């Protein structure tokens, strides 16, 4: 297990390094005035789905402003995230209708089951939790999205089942892959 964890950290570090060198190249195309701050952050987020810590420093250096200021702006907007999204991003709706039907309890259930907070990603990069405002199907409130799939009429008791289903599917895929490999 420990080897797995070490390998995962090493992989994550290598990944971040690759991302940073990519950003270093692309950031040069942007001007140096302060007004470019948000467009730069948006470009990074669009390309890599999140803002690594090193990127914040890099942007600060490029615009010649303190990294703290970049950090302040990036934390102000919900659009920016600081963790890579999981393979199955979970979005819990907290729009008006879902709020009224206790969407916050659904969010809390996901948080407790996965042992992460909203905005975070599980260490194995399988799941991440986000809160969103209205998915556009208020009649089904409370609503949660796992990947692209909408799950309506959510209840706390359904949370575990949904996560279990993904886990079982993953195990099944792995079994099939192993069978294929041994068949060859």
């Amino acid at each position, binding site marked *: 297990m420990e080897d797995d964890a070490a390998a995962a950290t090493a992989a994550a570090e290598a990944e971040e390094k690759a991302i940073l060198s990519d950003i270093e190249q692309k950031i040069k195309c942007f001007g140096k005035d302060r007004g470019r701050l948000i467009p730069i952050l948006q470009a990074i987020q669009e390309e890599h789905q999140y803002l690594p810590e090193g990127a*914040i*420093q890099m942007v600060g250096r490029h615009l010649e402003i*303190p990294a*703290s200021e*970049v*950090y*302040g702006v990036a*934390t*102000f907007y919900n659009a920016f995230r600081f963790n890579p999204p999981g393979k199955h991003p979970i979005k819990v709706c907290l729009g008006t209708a879902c709020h009224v039907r206790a969407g916050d309890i659904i969010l809390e259930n996901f948080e407790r089951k996965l042992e992460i907070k909203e905005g975070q990603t599980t260490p194995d990069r399988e799941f991440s939790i986000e809160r969103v405002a209205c998915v556009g199907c208020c009649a089904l409130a409370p609503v949660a999205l796992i990947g692209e799939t909408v799950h309506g009429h959510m209840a706390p008791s359904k949370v575990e089942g949904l996560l279990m289903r993904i886990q079982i599917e993953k195990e099944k895929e792995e079994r099939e892959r192993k069978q294929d490999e041994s068949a060859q």
Partner: protein
Amino acid sequence: MAKIVIDGAEIETEEGANLLKVCLDNDIYIPNLCRLETDETPHASCRLCFVEVAGYKSPVPSCTVAVTDEMVVKTDTEPVRRLQKTGLRFLLSTHKIECKDCPANKQCELQDIAKFLKVGLKPKGLKQRFHETDVDERHPCFTYYPNRCVLCGKCIRVCRQEHGQSTLTFARRGIDTVVSCFQGDDIEKLPCEDYRACAAICPVGALEVK
């Protein structure tokens, strides 16, 4: 020169002067938390320095008003005090009352204003909301206490005015707003070690020198 009347007393001052400053200079106390002498434009974020100016429909924050000739100002009216008390109670609802353990005890502007407005430190009728973390140790030179901070922003502005840039910043937003810094920022470039204006200017005890 402009002649104005504040609470019935005639005062001579310069046209265009800042009304809050004029009042304070003439020993007329108006509660305020976010005013910095060196600010070019008023920050106007604490919402405590309200006064009534004749000709204005409702009370205005005095730090945003420039004096004009024959202005008539009242600082102690019922609507003004109601606004100030409400503002203060909101500030106190996110402020952990642990005055005994706080180094700012008895030199705390929040305590002074509460006493002045006769508002209890534990305001009734408002739900208290605190940040999850009591202590933030991320800055190499300062310890930050989010549940003491009133978010006046004076620490950030005083540092920026002195050094052109600041390692302190507001982070997050709304009820979650905190004063923060980014770890790994080039703090060595700034003389935080020997320059502690930010901790000195704090009206409460939210920034402590390590």
